[in-house]
């Protein structure tokens, strides 16, 4: 069912939704940019539709809304443990088609991998309703079409700004509020059909040969292991446990989990001194293989959704898109 909203009507819709949901969207974070006096497009709770940035790609991915950077698992004291609680409100997140595809990737690891679903992930994931923001044209660095992640059917509603009005295709009318506030009209979401760049993901890569490829030495000499590529990535999911105790009573504290990155020092360090992939190039090889080989071997789809955020975030201008292409060409040549 499609609906048309004026800005005022959409804001009334948001106001009604916010009684039961927190609404997150990419919004302009003033002064948070990389350089002085620049802004950053990132996720925050919104109250009006004008706060949503439609014409730029968010620097951070939407995953931080339902898989927080730091998540309290439980509190402890002398009596034992008490589980952390979550906001009783639901969560509505505005995101792109590729981001929704990335949520499906996160679901694979957090819900399907291992003996059971991840309790803390599932707890927030069950609250999540997704509003896909149409992509009317591709941004720089996007390669979603090459990854087959430029479209999605998995959303509650779509939204795009067209000639001053908001058009929405609704699959699951949350509380019947879209129908209540909108004016019925035919709407189908728009997804990009081509990007400014295309990437050919190589199939049948042979790990031993890939690992022996000298390109990792080259990337290793540039990569500074800052981990930005994994932090902005919508499908990266690794985390580390962290215990803290309170200064005024060290017997009380909490166990948290915080995002971790295979690119950063210490990711594989074990007490006693052993560690793996000490070289930055090896770490990059590990990440690239996960994104375009290992994950698919395990779950049937590539982990990378071609959002290009890693390319935008890298301070050393390393491009995953170029790396994938180059690796494919070189490995094909090596095989003759």
């Amino acid at each position, binding site marked *: 069912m499609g609906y048309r909203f004026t800005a005022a009507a959409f804001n009334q819709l948001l106001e009604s939704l916010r009684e039961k949901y927190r609404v997150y969207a990419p919004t302009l974070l003033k002064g948070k940019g990389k350089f002085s006096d620049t802004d950053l497009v990132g996720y925050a709770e919104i109250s009006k539709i004008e706060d949503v940035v439609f014409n730029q790609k968010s620097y951070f991915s939407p995953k931080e809304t339902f898989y927080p950077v730091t998540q309290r*698992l*439980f509190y*402890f004291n002398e009596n*034992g*443990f008490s*589980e952390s609680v979550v906001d009783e409100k639901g969560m509505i997140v505005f995101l792109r088609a590729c981001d929704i595809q990335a949520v499906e990737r996160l679901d694979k*690891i*957090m819900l399907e*991998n*291992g*003996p*059971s*679903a*991840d*309790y*803390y*992930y*599932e*707890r927030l994931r*069950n609250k999540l309703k997704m509003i896909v923001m149409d992509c009317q044209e591709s941004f720089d660095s996007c390669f979603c079409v090459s990854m087959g992640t430029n479209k999605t059917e998995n959303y509650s509603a779509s939204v795009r700004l067209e000639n001053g009005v908001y058009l929405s295709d609704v699959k699951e009318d949350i509380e019947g509020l879209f129908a209540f506030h909108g004016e019925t009209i035919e709407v189908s979401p728009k997804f990009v059909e081509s990007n400014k760049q295309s990437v050919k993901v190589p199939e049948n890569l042979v*790990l*031993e040969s890939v*690992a022996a490829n000298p390109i990792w030495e080259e990337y290793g000499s540039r990569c500074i292991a800052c981990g930005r590529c994994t932090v902005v990535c919508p499908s990266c*999911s*690794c*985390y*580390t*446990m*962290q*215990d*803290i*105790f309170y200064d005024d009573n*060290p*017997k009380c*504290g909490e*166990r948290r*989990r915080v995002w*971790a990155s*295979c690119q950063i020092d210490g*990711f*594989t*360090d*074990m*007490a*006693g*001194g*052993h560690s*793996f*992939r000490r070289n930055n190039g*090896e770490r990059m090889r*590990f990440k690239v*293989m*996960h994104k375009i*080989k*290992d*994950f698919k*071997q*395990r779950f049937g789809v590539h982990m990378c959704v071609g959002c290009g955020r890693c390319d935008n975030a890298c301070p050393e201008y390393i491009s995953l898109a170029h790396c994938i292409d180059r690796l494919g060409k070189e490995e094909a040549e090596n095989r003759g």
Partner: protein
Amino acid sequence: MAKNSYLPFKAKILAKYQQTELDWTYRLECQIQPIAGQFMEVSLPGVGECPISISDFGDGYIEMTIRRVGQVTGGIDKLVPGDYLFLRGPYGNGFPLESFYDKHLIIAAGGTGLAPVKSVINYFYARPELLQRCDILTGFKTPNDVLFKCDLDKWAQTFRVEVTVDKLDEFGNLEVIANSCSRRTGLITALIPDVEIPSLEDVRVIIVGPPVMMKFTAQEFLCRGLAKESIWVSFERKMSCGLGKCGHCKIDETYVCLEGPVFNFAQAQTLLD
């Protein structure tokens, strides 16, 4: 909704035995029924959590042999019987004990690598008729690093046990090791050419130790003509969950916490960190 697998349970320390200056074995009150080779996530609230292999288990208890090397193990070291540790698990696959039945089992363990196989050895020590024969090769840095001295002595009554140390140090000499074991100086790899192998097809090997030790020990066995499929190893990796989520132990598409820590060498040798 899934159950909360992250909440640990309390386990009372029933006893604590010193193995070396740094290693202690903790007997913990615990009702779980693990498989030999599995591990637990062990924690001290406020300090942290880490994976530790189960070195032995029995009715109502498990044992873990823990070396004081990091923050959590440093905290554990201060605990005494009557104190509590916090556990979740068991995790991982463990050793496929039945594939060793009626075979000639050779166990090669380096340093703390003896801990995860201790329960395998005890299993067959209690049921020696299940094996054709058993050789236990162990290697430690110095005589002062030898673990499970009493057990080595006990096992040597039934199986052939060899203990080698990399070097003698000023405080230790080989006399500290039970007399019933064959004692040498040198690397564990040097013991392998001398292992008597009456029938190559019947040999099954378990190798556990530091990565370099496992690599070269496996090579020695391959040199003796063993098939890769006849060798098992156990990996050690950083892990934050044990549940296939945190990503720390991933190698290629394999999660050590799920598909391991025990791997057949045919697979293990293809895993590239």
